């Protein structure tokens, strides 16, 4: 049996630090919103000439008064991702096409064009925030129905921890937040909850079984009993996600990365946050029996 409980305090301090640092980053550095939420235009180009590089492309586009243009390689040397802010010129994509053809010859294939107006991006951001909030509230209600309040608090803290730290990491690394990241965050919410609930189920079962074991020991027993399941599921989920990350193409990179972070944090938090809340709230057999009497 691994003594997870020996590190409860240390990891609690670590988690609190991580959450504070993440909140700090989110407040002061902010998130790198993609055009879905900020509005603007995105163009994915493939060039057939390997002499064309990011700087020559950028130089060319800078002559067009596009405002703040970002030019990056996308996955490989020949693919480029161009982004710029909302432009009042409705014909801008055509003009870029003409301009590029003039300067480089007919070397570019426009693989993807996305243009999100300011009104739509504001709506998408709003509905994204609503979706995550609704998800958190629904999880709260679910867990509140299923468990005693001490458990609910533990699960919810773990959930907030995972979402905040994942977003914090995205802020730290400057990774782009787009619609698919919202999908990833919601899936993380589901996954983290799922992991926590499985361990909590066992804690509750053990609380009924043993009246003489203190919660500090009892959580450790429960974590160990469910440990191989926790690990196997995390590993298979990570295997699936890693294969999306490495083979699923550039477009899914951000999504799978967010999910990978989320699964790691989710697994960690169900052990080191959810359970420690039970310990700190001194949950005992009486907590459960009281609840049983009521029903």
């Amino acid at each position: 049996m691994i003594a997870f409980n020996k590190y409860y305090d240390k990891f609690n301090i670590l988690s609190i630090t991580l959450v504070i640092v993440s909140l700090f980053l989110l407040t002061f550095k902010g998130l790198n919103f993609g055009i879905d939420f900020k509005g603007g235009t995105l163009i994915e180009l493939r060039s057939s000439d390997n002499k064309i590089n990011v700087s020559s492309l950028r130089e060319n586009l800078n002559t067009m008064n596009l405002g703040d243009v970002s030019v990056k390689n996308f996955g490989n040397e020949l693919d480029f991702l161009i982004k710029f802010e909302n432009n009042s010129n409705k014909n801008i994509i055509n003009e870029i096409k003409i301009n590029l053809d003039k300067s480089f010859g007919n070397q570019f294939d426009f693989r993807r064009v996305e243009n999100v107006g300011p009104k739509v991006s504001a709506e998408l951001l709003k509905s994204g925030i609503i979706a995550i909030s609704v998800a958190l509230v629904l999880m709260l209600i679910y867990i509140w129905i299923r468990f005693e309040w001490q458990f609910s608090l533990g699960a919810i803290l773990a959930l907030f921890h995972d979402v905040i730290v994942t977003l914090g990491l995205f802020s730290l690394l400057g990774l782009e937040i787009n619609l698919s990241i919202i999908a990833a965050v919601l899936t993380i919410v589901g996954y983290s909850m799922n992991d926590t609930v499985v361990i909590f189920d066992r804690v509750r079962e053990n609380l009924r079984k043993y009246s003489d074991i203190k919660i500090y020991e009892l959580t450790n027993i429960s974590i160990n009993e469910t440990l191989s399941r926790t690990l196997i599921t995390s590993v298979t989920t990570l295997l699936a996600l890693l294969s999306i990350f490495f083979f699923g193409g550039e477009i899914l990179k951000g999504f799978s990365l967010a999910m990978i972070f989320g699964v790691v944090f989710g697994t960690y938090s169900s052990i080191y946050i959810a359970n420690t809340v039970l310990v700190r709230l001194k949950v005992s057999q009486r907590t459960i029996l009281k609840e049983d009497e009521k029903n």
Partner: protein
Amino acid sequence: MLYFSKLRIVSILLISLFFIILASSNLFKFKSSLLDKKINLGLDLQGGSYLLLEIDNTPVIEQKLQNLTTTLRNYFKDKNIKIKNLKLLDQKISFSVDENYKQTILDEFNNQESDFNPYYPRFKSHQLDLIEENDIFFVSYSDQGLIKLKTSSQDQALEIVRRRIDEIGTNEPNILKRGNDRILVELPGLDDPMRIKSLLGKTANLTFRFVTNNQEDSFGTEKLKYEDNSDEAIVSKRIILSGDNLLDAQPRMNSETNETVVSFTLDRVGAKRFGKATSTGIGKQLAIVLDGKIISAPVIRDTIASGSGQISGGFTFQSATDLALLLRSGALPAPLNIIEERTVGPDLGQDSINAGMIALAIGFLLVILFIFIKYKIFGLITNITLIINLFLLIGILTIFEATLTLPGIAGIILTVGMAVDANVLIFERIKEELKNEKNNLIAFDSGYTKSRTAILDANITTLLAAIILFFMGSGPIKGFSLTLGIGIFTTLFSVYFIARLLTVLYVSKNKEKEGLI
């Protein structure tokens, strides 16, 4: 938990077989109509254009209020009430009347039988709101009136948009209403939406009006620019003909001038008016105005009674074709703005499909290998379950002819990773039970029973997330939530029916064997 009746076994096998065949119908062509279904590929996979258009209703509202000022003036004139200071400002009409008429005005506006202010009994609201402030009346559209106006202009715009897109002949366009002032257009297989965008961006409001030098034209005049911004002219506001009078328009080559023109045919009313105008206006210039710009302003040389004519204006064949198309399909009630566009080229789509499939194959193999190494014979059972699960998932998507997007493929791969969870929960529980229970059958039975709540919990939490995403997410994200959500049901089915059936078959043959799992 462990008993299966013969009937049940047969139905499980039949269901699985049905879905396997259904799922494979995506690869092979089946003759039967029931099986001849296919998963639709989303625009991000097959390539295509997604355009969200917003109707700018401001000009419509202003036009309607403008007309209303005339109506009001005449209506109350007939009742011998003098309307003073009648003005239209910021989509509000303001006016004042003598003190003793105020009540009449209020009564007329609040009359449920009112001619100029329709009453909607269903919504208990009039079309217009009347507010009195410092002896001045303000008339504006009520919330309900505005909704009616917007939906009606949305209906008209949708029709025109559909006609324009049909004229171009893209395959299987999807044109849908969104809210009360938006139209969603999905054009599969279109990698350069430039032409459609420019066609949808034009209102195509065509009018024929005389060029006038007389500033005191009784209809009023306005200064308009030429299409190529080269010059401007003063044009009467009197409309001789409008696009509504056109029956047909086609691009033509004028053999005399060797110029591309748009020839048009007028309806009977239009032909009569055109004949009259051309007979009285010989020597005058007739401006052909499209969306507030003059295309050309030819001098009338002869009376045209045939009801057909030509528009010239330095067209290329393409621009003449487009103008003819716009004129044939009619004018939009209000300008459309493209507020969101997402276009994916077909080769990127194909690349995404390939990448998605490779990721699925590799993810699947890795999971299968890992599970087999971990659980051996039960790993094999889990893996068979996983494969059938995949067929079930694809089969259900096929039945509904659902749309598969790139995030949707990610959802399938994620389902593969998470579907194992339920079996793992069961097997780990059985392992624990076997520590205290020598009888395999009893241990397996209680393993299944005791792991049930945890499995349900785990799946309900994921399902909640998927449902929220489905209803709140947009576009490709919906595809992800769809596969994730359906994946939960197929997982539960395959774990509780297929995996359990296989487990039962194996355990009943090895009742006494030790260290089974």
